[in-house]
């Protein structure tokens, strides 16, 4: 349906193929969180890989920062219709976490857990193969609490709620178990290019 009188502020042609349908560019930093920003002290910070209920490896903040560091610059897309191009991140690739734990991806699905009790589900294939990291730096600076610091998951090719803030564990699961937002009406996968915003979208 064409909306009477609407012509829109369209992105310049050279970047329009980087803006998924229904999204608009912003210079701000998109934020989506369900509650207040938790304070996560570094001396008790811990990150754990689990297979089902069983922990297979944990890192302290110091140990985590001694892992191989990777930088990646990606476009990110928030389900509230903001997109931001060329955001620079630094952190530890999921591939390197698995390598340090000496395991292959054990199951097809992953549930990411956060310090504030929230969860989000991502197929394991979307986390490995250079696609995803646990980010500790944004624009060269330590990640601020508002943006998920000290560490957040970064899965830039999915809607940004999948990039769980204040992440503290990845749990590999046999089945696709829905996370916090996914149980509350958001899409189980969340591909911005297919506009998988809400439950039941194609």
């Amino acid at each position, binding site marked *: 349906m064409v909306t009477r009188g609407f012509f829109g502020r369209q992105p310049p042609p050279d970047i329009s193929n980087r803006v998924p349908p229904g999204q608009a560019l912003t210079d701000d930093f998109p*934020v989506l969180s369900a*509650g207040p920003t938790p304070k996560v002290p570094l001396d008790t910070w811990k990150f754990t890989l689990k297979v089902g209920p069983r922990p297979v490896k944990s890192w302290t903040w110091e140990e985590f920062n001694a892992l191989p560091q990777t930088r990646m610059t990606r476009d990110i897309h928030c389900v509230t219709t903001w997109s931001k191009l060329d955001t620079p991140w630094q952190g530890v690739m999921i591939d390197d976490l698995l390598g340090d734990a000496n395991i292959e991806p054990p199951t097809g699905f992953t549930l990411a857990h956060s310090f504030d009790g929230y969860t989000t589900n991502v197929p394991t294939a979307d986390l490995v193969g250079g696609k995803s990291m646990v980010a500790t730096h944004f624009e060269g600076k330590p990640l601020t609490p508002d943006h998920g610091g000290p560490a957040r998951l970064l899965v830039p090719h999915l809607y940004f709620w999948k990039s769980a803030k204040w992440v503290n564990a990845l749990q590999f699961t046999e089945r696709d178990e829905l996370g916090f937002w996914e149980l509350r009406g958001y899409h189980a996968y969340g591909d911005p290019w297919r506009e998988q915003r809400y439950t039941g979208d194609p």
Partner: protein
Amino acid sequence: MVISSSTRIEWQTATVKEIVPRTPRVTSFVLTPSRPFTPKAGQHVDVRLTAPDGYQAQRGYSISSAPESAPDIELAIERLEEGEVSPFFHQVVQPGDEIELRGPLGGHFVWAAEEGGPILLIAGGSGVAPLMAMARHRAASGSTVPMAMLFSCRTWDEVIFRDELLAMHRKRDGFELILTLTRDVEKRNGLHGRRIDSAMVTEATERLPTPPVLTFVCGSNAFVSAASESSVAAGVPAGSIRTERYGG
């Protein structure tokens, strides 16, 4: 509260029934969806505008009317200078126009009277929209759940839904309004004149008979961060605070 149905919420058209200016920068648009639905207080719709060449812009807007007002829904939209969608609503949309939308959306930032209380609502500017739906729902359903709303605006003229909120407050039936005006030159009796802080949140919780079981905070990103931090500092358990951020 968990949405278990996996049916897709489809796009549909809604007719603009009425346009009501609320403040110099905020106007309400009352829409009648072609396929009616009853929202929960706090939910939103996504609105989609389409240009003749197929270009589309999409934004979320909270439903500010009570579920009891269905099939009509009210969106209170603030005009942002240089914005793409909000100025379109303010400058172009007329009664009788058709707008594409889908909803109701969101299953976390919602409250129903049966869930009880007390409830604390903290709003910054147009962030009052989903909280107004909760206050109106309380009134329309005849609920006696104690509810306090702490509402921050720039000036007296920018207090969205001012007369309706003051009327609810004056009924003395368990709804309490605490206003703060951050940029008003005039001092007004009983009103605060500073940004929300923990003392103000404490004052709001003290107007409730017992501490709030749920606190809803809505507004710009910066407002929500500051207000939820003030709430935690005032002793509101972090796990009982639900936030909705409008971006920016």
